C-alpha cells in the first residue's frame, strides 16, 4: 500500500484497511469517522483553533502521522535475517583485554554465569545496544559477521533483542487475555485472536497452576506471570535474539519454557545459576570483574549428570505438590 493511495481513497476504505489510523487520531483527541471523503480532505479541514486547544499544529500532526504510518507499514516488512551474532572481546574493569571472539547461531543457548555485580547485565546491555567499542567494556557486536546498521539501536518496530527480565509484575488493570491482545495489536501481528489463544494455551502448559483468560494480570502468581511472559516472547516476538535474566525455579516448567524458546530459532542468552538450565545450555560464559573470563562447553559428562539433576528436581517438585495439597512429608 502506497502512502498516496492511503491519503486519497475514501475514509470508508482507509479506516477498514488501517484501523490504527483511528487509534492515532483518538490519541490526539481528534474524532475521525468513515465517510466518502479522503484522509487528505480530513487533514485539510481540521479546525486550527481546535488543534491549538489540543496542543498540536496541523503541520506537526501531519509530520507525526507520516512517521507513524511509515512505522506501521514497516512492521509488516520482513525482518533482516540474523544468521550469527558475534561478541568481539573488549576489556574488564581493570582494563585487561578479554582476547576472544564468540559467535552464536540461532537455536543456541548460552548461559551467562558470575557473581552479582560481575558484569552479566552489562554484557546483555552491550548486545542490546549493539555496542561498537563505545561502551565501558569496549566490546563490539557483529551481526552476520558485519558491523550492523545503527538502526537496530532505536528501532521499535524491528527490535534485535527481546528481553525477559526477572521482574514479572504488572500494574495495568487488564485481564490476561486483554493484555496479550493489546500486546499483539501493538506488534501488528496477523490474526491476533489466534495468537492470543495460542499464547494463553502455552502459558497454561508451562505454569504449575492453570489460570483462566479473564484472570486480571495483577493477580497472576509469580509462576503464572513468568509462564505468560515466556509464551508471549516465544509466540509474539519477532526479535531474533532473546536475553533472559534467570527463569526462577517456582511454579513453572523451566525445561519446557526453554524448549519453547529454542524451537522459535532464536539465539538465547540467559543469565542463570540454575544447574539444570546451565547444563541445558550449549556453552557457559563466565564473567569476572566485568570481563569474560572463560567459556565452558557443556561436556558429555555434564550432560549425563543432567539426568540425575532432573530426577532430583522432579523429586522436589513432587514434594512441593504434596505440601500444596495438604499432604505431610513424614515419608519421603
Amino acid at each position, binding site marked *: 500500500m502506497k502512502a498516496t493511495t492511503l491519503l486519497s481513497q475514501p475514509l470508508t476504505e482507509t479506516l477498514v484497511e488501517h484501523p490504527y489510523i483511528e487509534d492515532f487520531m483518538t490519541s490526539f483527541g481528534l474524532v475521525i469517522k468513515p465517510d466518502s471523503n479522503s484522509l487528505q480532505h480530513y487533514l485539510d479541514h481540521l479546525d486550527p483553533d481546535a488543534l491549538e486547544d489540543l496542543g498540536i499544529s496541523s503541520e506537526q500532526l501531519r509530520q*507525526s502521522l507520516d512517521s507513524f504510518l511509515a512505522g506501521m507499514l514497516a512492521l509488516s516488512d520482513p525482518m533482516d535475517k540474523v544468521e550469527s551474532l558475534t561478541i568481539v572481546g573488549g576489556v574488564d574493569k581493570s582494563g585487561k583485554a578479554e582476547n576472544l571472539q564468540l559467535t552464536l547461531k540461532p537455536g543456541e543457548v548460552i548461559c551467562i554465569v558470575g557473581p552479582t555485580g560481575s558484569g552479566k547485565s552489562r554484557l546483555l546491555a552491550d548486545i542490546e545496544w549493539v555496542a561498537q567499542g563505545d561502551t565501558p567494556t569496549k566490546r563490539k557486536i557483529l551481526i552476520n559477521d558485519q558491523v550492523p546498521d545503527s538502526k537496530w539501536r532505536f528501532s521499535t518496530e524491528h527490535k534485535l533483542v527481546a528481553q525477559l527480565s526477572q521482574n514479572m509484575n*504488572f500494574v495495568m488493570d487488564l485481564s490476561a487475555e486483554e493484555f496479550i491482545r493489546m500486546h499483539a495489536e501493538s506488534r501488528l501481528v496477523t490474526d491476533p485472536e489466534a495468537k492470543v489463544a495460542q499464547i494463553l494455551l502455552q502459558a497454561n502448559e508451562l505454569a504449575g497452576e492453570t489460570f483462566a483468560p479473564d484472570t486480571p494480570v495483577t493477580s497472576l502468581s509469580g509462576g503464572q506471570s513468568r509462564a505468560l511472559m515466556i509464551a508471549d516472547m516465544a509466540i509474539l516476538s519477532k526479535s531474533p535474539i532473546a536475553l533472559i535474566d534467570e527463569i526462577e525455579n517456582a511454579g513453572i516448567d523451566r525445561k519446557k519454557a526453554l524448549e519453547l524458546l529454542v524451537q522459535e530459532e532464536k539465539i538465547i542468552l540467559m543469565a542463570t545459576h540454575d544447574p539444570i538450565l546451565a547444563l541445558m545450555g550449549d556453552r557457559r560464559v563466565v564473567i569476572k570483574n566485568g570481563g569474560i573470563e572463560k567459556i565452558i562447553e557443556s561436556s558429555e559428562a555434564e550432560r549425563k549428570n543432567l539426568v540425575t539433576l532432573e530426577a532430583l528436581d522432579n523429586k522436589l517438585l513432587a514434594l512441593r505438590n504434596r505440601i500444596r495439597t495438604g499432604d505431610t512429608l513424614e515419608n519421603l
Partner: protein
Amino acid sequence: MRFLTISGPPSSGKTSVILRVIEALQTRQQKIGVVKFDCLLTDDDKLYAKKGVLVKKGLSGALCPDHYFVSNIESCVTWGHENGCEYLISESAGLCNRCSPHIKEITAVCVIDNLSGINTPKKIGPMLKSADIVVITKGDIVSQAEREVFASRVRQVNPGAIIMNVNGITGQGAFELTSLFEDASDIETLKGKVLRFSMPSALCSYCLGETRIGEEHQTGNIRKMDLQEGSA
C-alpha cells in the same frame, strides 16, 4: 555549549535520569550546568550540587510555571555559557499537560514513567508529542510486555521520537542516553529562538488575583462548558 530542555510529569524520574546522565558525562570530564524549575519548593538543586555541577533553581511561586520558564530561560542559557558549561540542562515539570518548554532547534527530552497508566501518553500535550527523545523510566517494576505496550502507546503519539528505557536507580540505559546528548543542539544564546508550541493563554480576572466565584466577577479570556443535554 550543548543545551537540552528536559520535561515530564511530576515524579516521573526527571531528576534521577539527569543525575545518571551527569555521572556518565563526568567520566568524560565535561563541565555541566543544570537549571531546575519548580513551583513551590525543591531540594533537587542540592542533589545536583552534591554531584559538583553548577546549579540554579527558579521557583515560579504564584506565576504560571511554564510562562515563568520561558521568561527566564534565555538568561539561564547566557549564564551557562558565561560560566563555561559544556552541557546545560533545564529541568521543568509539565503540570497542566498542555504546556511545553520545548524550543525549536533545541534538543527536547520528555521523561515519562511506566507506572503512569496506559492512557497517560495521549493525555500529555506538546511536552511529549513534540519531544525529540522520550525517556521511559521505572521499567524495572513491570514486565517486558508491559514496557512494550506502554512504549507503543508513546510511539503512537510521537512516532518520530527516539524512545529509550532508562532506569533512574541502577542507571541502566543512562550511558546510551548520554551518547544521544553528545549530539544535542550546540548554542551560545537563545536569541531569536521560538517555542515549539504556544503556551495556553490565561488572561482573565482570576489571573489578576480575583478569588470570588460568579459570572459578575469573570472578565477577559473566559470559556464556558456546554452543559446542555446531549452534548459531551
